[in-house]
């Protein structure tokens, strides 16, 4: 499967600058989307503009799962900071979790205007179904989900 690296949404860069997204204190979730989703459109800003999340069924709940152990900390060198979190897993039960194509990280907020899209990744070249009794784990690299560095 052609797993790709996480990619920033354009507006996420703006929002970490104006404080709308705070990697050190905000709550984040990881959700799954289908191949019909617009998740790879980098100009998306809010969760409300994201289409075609994987259907809620068979072990997948809408809005995905919370990212645990979120940290914003020094990365590979003093010139880099990284956004890191623990792995997230779904277990398919009672049927398949269908049409999995990509993953999106969302910052959770009290209102629709505060639910910011942070980054996305394509998990596969062709969407897949996770058959019942199996587990899908999205494992961020030890280097982080996102990094920000300077020269």
């Amino acid at each position: 499967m052609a797993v790709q690296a996480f990619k920033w949404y354009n507006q996420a860069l703006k929002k970490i600058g104006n404080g709308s997204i705070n990697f050190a204190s905000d709550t984040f979730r990881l959700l799954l989307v289908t191949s019909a989703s617009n998740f790879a459109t980098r100009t998306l800003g809010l969760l409300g503009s994201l289409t075609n999340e994987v259907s809620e069924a068979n072990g997948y709940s809408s809005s995905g799962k919370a990212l645990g152990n979120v940290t914003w900390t020094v990365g590979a060198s003093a010139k880099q900071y990284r956004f890191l979190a623990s792995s997230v897993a779904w277990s398919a039960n009672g049927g398949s979790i269908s049409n999995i194509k990509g993953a999106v990280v969302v910052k959770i907020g009290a209102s629709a205007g505060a639910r910011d899209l942070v980054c996305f990744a394509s998990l596969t070249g062709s969407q897949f179904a996770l058959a019942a009794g199996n587990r899908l784990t999205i494992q961020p690299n030890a280097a982080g989900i996102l990094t920000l560095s300077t020269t």
Partner: protein
Amino acid sequence: MRGRFVLRLLDAADGLLGWTEVLARPCPGGAFHADDAVGLVVDRDGQAASVTVHWTELDIARRVTVPVMAVRAGVRLRLDWPENIVWRVHGEADVPRPPVTVRRDLTLSLRPGESSAAAV
């Protein structure tokens, strides 16, 4: 030169019932022909509804509807396609690639997205 085609037997919900890989040669007349009759071994019981043909080099696929029929795991199914034609250049319209069904635990490790700032 031969084209590499992956055939998938699917049920009505696009669940995978069996698959096979076929090497087919291009022939005058605008089609790719397999050397022998095309067949596949059914992986799991179900009601077959269609066969998708995925031309892997071009990453395009087509769907062939088959009579709905019960199939059983372990049975070899033969597809009696005229002249063993797997793909016609001017044939049916292309369709989205069929979904893959994963039947084992899967861990995907994703690399970080990077952004950098340059001092001016």
